[in-house]
């Protein structure tokens, strides 16, 4: 097995790479897709990312075709159907890779080593190899031929949204990076920018980062706050409501759509705005609950970040890959059997505000998870901008997949890497919050506060508001949302 690339770097180099993250200005994309115009782009893999990115690139006037394994073509598998029904040229690696100026590797992480080793000898001299995720380079230490340029273009949304937003005339926030060990002609950045324009990403905001910063922050975010916290929170909150005698259909609905509703407030105005949607007494309760949970969960967040930094996480996961995903598939099956997953949402109406009023604990969990993930990442040397995107910014996206498909499908939709980390987190966090949950009643989850008087103590409220607003994730969030608003939806 190759050596973990990150671990080959000196501490100073590691910190320098982790710190890379810069919000790019719209004017940096004035060349449009010119750097890719007339070049032959060949996509490997035709799943959700592969297909949808390809559709966007082609609609931007670029030359896109797909290469699949010979077996996938012969058996007319789904990936073959996806590509041909959409009018793309499809060919084997041998047919298409040698003609490609840019090879877009959009296969799942776990296939990267095999795929890249297979296509690399076929690639023409001086071509470009592009990734959507840096795992293969950073964690598996893939060594790419010296003449090849290696870039990353990572839309921060599921493939279906990458397409839907493009069709609307917009795009999704996108992270780009150049692997500096593989930029022989110094054209990596120009290619990555043109690629981001081709998928529409430049309209929604592009972050210039590094392979390392992307991997280490992405892994941390997805396994803790994004997927892990929402999974753990869903299971704990549901079971608590049932124990408290809340109607099962109502409980299921409150959770399935509640994450989406409360994190929508997060998207618009950060933790501050999400908390401000609560009444004053509820806000103070949520604040106290979040503080309590942060104290309990902090060591777990530290462990996740440490395991990601040392490579322990990826090593463990890769061992499971080698073991036919035994753990992953077992845990996925367990998720399908949980009470929350098996209880369909009721058909009662829940108003937008009611999701806040009756979901105080959920709001507290989002606050605790976002802040802890952000604090842990920045403590580890990841720059605040990256930490913001990989925690707060992406939470509504995952919440949205839960609203559509609940946990089992959420896990099937996200990458295997995210899913694996999510289960690790969940298995540790559920017992960790056990004692805490015994003290929870339906006033903070399911029924809303039972208070006659909405009054609160002035000085306590001021203290709580100040604490919420002065958290560092709020400062960077306000700044980045400010940049984005120039190019973002004008609402």
């Amino acid at each position, binding site marked *: 097995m190759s050596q973990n690339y990150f671990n080959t770097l000196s501490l100073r180099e590691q910190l320098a790479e982790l710190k890379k993250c810069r919000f790019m200005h719209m004017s940096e994309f004035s060349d449009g*897709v010119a750097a890719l*115009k*007339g070049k032959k782009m060949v996509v490997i893999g035709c799943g959700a990312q592969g297909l949808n990115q390809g*559709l966007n690139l*082609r*609609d*931007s*006037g*670029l*030359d896109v075709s797909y290469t699949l394994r010979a077996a996938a073509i012969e058996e007319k598998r789904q990936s073959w*159907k996806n590509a041909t*029904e*959409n*009018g*793309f040229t499809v060919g084997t690696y041998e047919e298409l890779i040698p003609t490609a100026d840019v090879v877009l590797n959009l296969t799942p992480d776990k296939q990267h080593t095999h795929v890249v080793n297979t296509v690399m000898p076929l690639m023409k001299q001086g071509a470009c190899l592009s990734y959507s995720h840096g795992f293969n380079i950073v964690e598996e230490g893939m060594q790419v031929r010296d003449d090849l340029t290696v870039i990353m273009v990572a839309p921060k949304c599921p493939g279906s949204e990458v397409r839907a937003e493009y*069709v*609307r*005339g*917009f795009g999704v926030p996108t992270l780009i990076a150049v692997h500096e060990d593989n930029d022989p002609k110094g054209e990596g950045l120009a290619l990555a920018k043109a690629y981001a324009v081709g998928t529409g990403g430049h*309209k929604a905001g592009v972050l210039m980062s590094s392979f390392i910063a992307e991997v280490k922050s992405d892994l941390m975010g997805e396994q803790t706050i994004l997927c892990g916290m929402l999974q753990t929170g869903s299971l704990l909150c549901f079971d608590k409501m049932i124990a408290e005698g809340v109607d099962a259909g109502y409980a299921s609905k409150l959770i399935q759509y509640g994450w989406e509703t409360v994190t929508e407030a997060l998207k618009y105005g950060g933790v501050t705005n999400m908390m401000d949607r609560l009444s004053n007494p509820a806000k103070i309760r949520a604040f106290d609950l979040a503080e309590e949970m942060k104290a309990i969960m902090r060591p777990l967040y530290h462990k996740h970040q440490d395991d990601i930094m040392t490579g322990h996480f990826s090593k463990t996961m890769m061992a499971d890959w080698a073991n036919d995903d035994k753990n992953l598939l077992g845990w996925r099956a367990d998720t399908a059997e949980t009470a929350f997953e098996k209880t369909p949402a009721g058909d009662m109406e829940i108003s937008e505000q009611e999701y806040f009023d009756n979901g105080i604990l959920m709001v507290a969990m989002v606050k605790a998870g976002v802040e802890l993930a952000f604090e842990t990442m920045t403590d580890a040397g990841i720059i605040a901008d990256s930490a913001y995107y990989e925690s707060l910014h992406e939470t509504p996206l995952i919440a949205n997949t839960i609203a559509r498909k609940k946990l089992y499908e959420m896990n099937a939709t996200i990458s295997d890497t995210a899913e694996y980390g999510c289960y690790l987190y969940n298995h540790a966090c559920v017992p960790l919050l056990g004692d805490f949950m015994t003290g929870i009643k339906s006033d903070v989850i399911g029924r809303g506060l039972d208070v006659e008087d909405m009054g609160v103590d002035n000085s306590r409220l001021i203290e709580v508001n100040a604490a919420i607003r002065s958290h560092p994730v709020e400062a960077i969030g306000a700044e980045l949302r400010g940049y984005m608003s*120039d*190019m*973002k*939806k*004008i*609402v």
Partner: protein
Amino acid sequence: MPTSLQNLTVNFDERFDLKNIDWRLESGQHWLISGPNGAGKSALAAVLTGAGKVASGEISGLPQHVGWVSFEAQAELIAAELKKDDADIMDVISEGTPVREILAQESRDLVLIDELVAKFELGYLLDRAFRKLSTGETRKVMLIRALSNQPDLLVLDEPFEGLDVKTHAMLHDYLSALSPNVQIVMVLNRLDECPDFVTDVAYVEQGKLLHQVKRTDQAALAELHQLLHLKTTDLEIPPTDPTAENKLPPLDPAQPLVRLTGAAIKYDDTVIFEGLDWTIEPGEHWQLSGPNGSGKTGLLSLITGDHPQCYVNDIFVFGFQRGSGESIWQIKQYIGYVSTALQWEHRVSVSVRNVIISGFYDSIGLYHKPSETEKAIAVQWLDLLGMTARADEPFNKLSYGDQRLLLIARAMVKHPPLLILDEPCLGLDEMNRQLVLALIEKICASSGTAVLYVNHHPHDHIKGIEHFLSL
């Protein structure tokens, strides 16, 4: 007993018929008749006074005493007076009938005449000849004549027209006081002058009674208001943005807008259509029809570039051979597009104003800071649609019909060479259907845009469309 018109067709003269009117005036109801000019509002009111020649159908329950005030009644009376003059064989100058006599002719209550004369402050002209009065004075005389007849039904065609402000207010109050005892039907051009006692509104167009709306149904009343506005406004389709940023690159007028050669859409083994040749020249209006599933929307999306198989077809659009390195936005800039699916796509929170402006950018939602010119053009469109006051409301809070109107405005804002309307009336009720058609007709009449209109009924077509394609 209610007055009832059943499937009534009435001929007025060679030029005008009221057709198949079904209308019931219950006691206690007061009606306002609205509609565009020349629609037949006055004719419908006049039917209640026995005017016109019944060609078919039935009218029943008309009360014995009907008071009628209208310009026609006024003109008739003046004509009669003039005729008297002509008929005078004696070589003396006739003074004509004095007002006093004109008033007494039909009155059933002479005391009431005196009261009304005092109210209208007409005492000074009681002895003058009727035909020498000014228009406003004549109108007041007609009103007093009708009111003093103690009618059971009062038919007032534009009663406030020609009255000064003070008299207008007085008459309004008088009618309000009268309304508990006398049924009133009035024709008004302006819905916003509708007195409070009116309980029901009728809408007439092209000799047909198209809508009957309860005064209490605010939503329907607002739609009626808007329909009337669109039908009567002098406003034209606003110009497009002349600034360079939004100016479309010019097309070669010698080339067709669209040319499909042997076009096909196929999935797996299913062929939706194949071997289709179709050319749309600049300014040609087309109607595309065919049953559900025949591929109408698929065909359109080959043109708009929304169908991925546009890359495996021989398609020439707006100067580009598809698949030659053009971007989809270079195609879309020449197209305005409206469909039900597009309406569903508008789930994001966008203001009414910004939906219109987004048409300049071919985006769903607005992702650019709009220029002052763009904002000004949006305002002009809102004026045309009668939606000025709603500019800042969220799009998704509007009624379905209003959303459709806005999407048409969005599609037209840049005056595209091709406007595609994919079943633009789908899912709309009759009133909103007419609103949409009124807007489309305005567009067809006053712009150089080629309209491609799609529906699944080949017979249901729009004025001005002369080319047809059936799938």
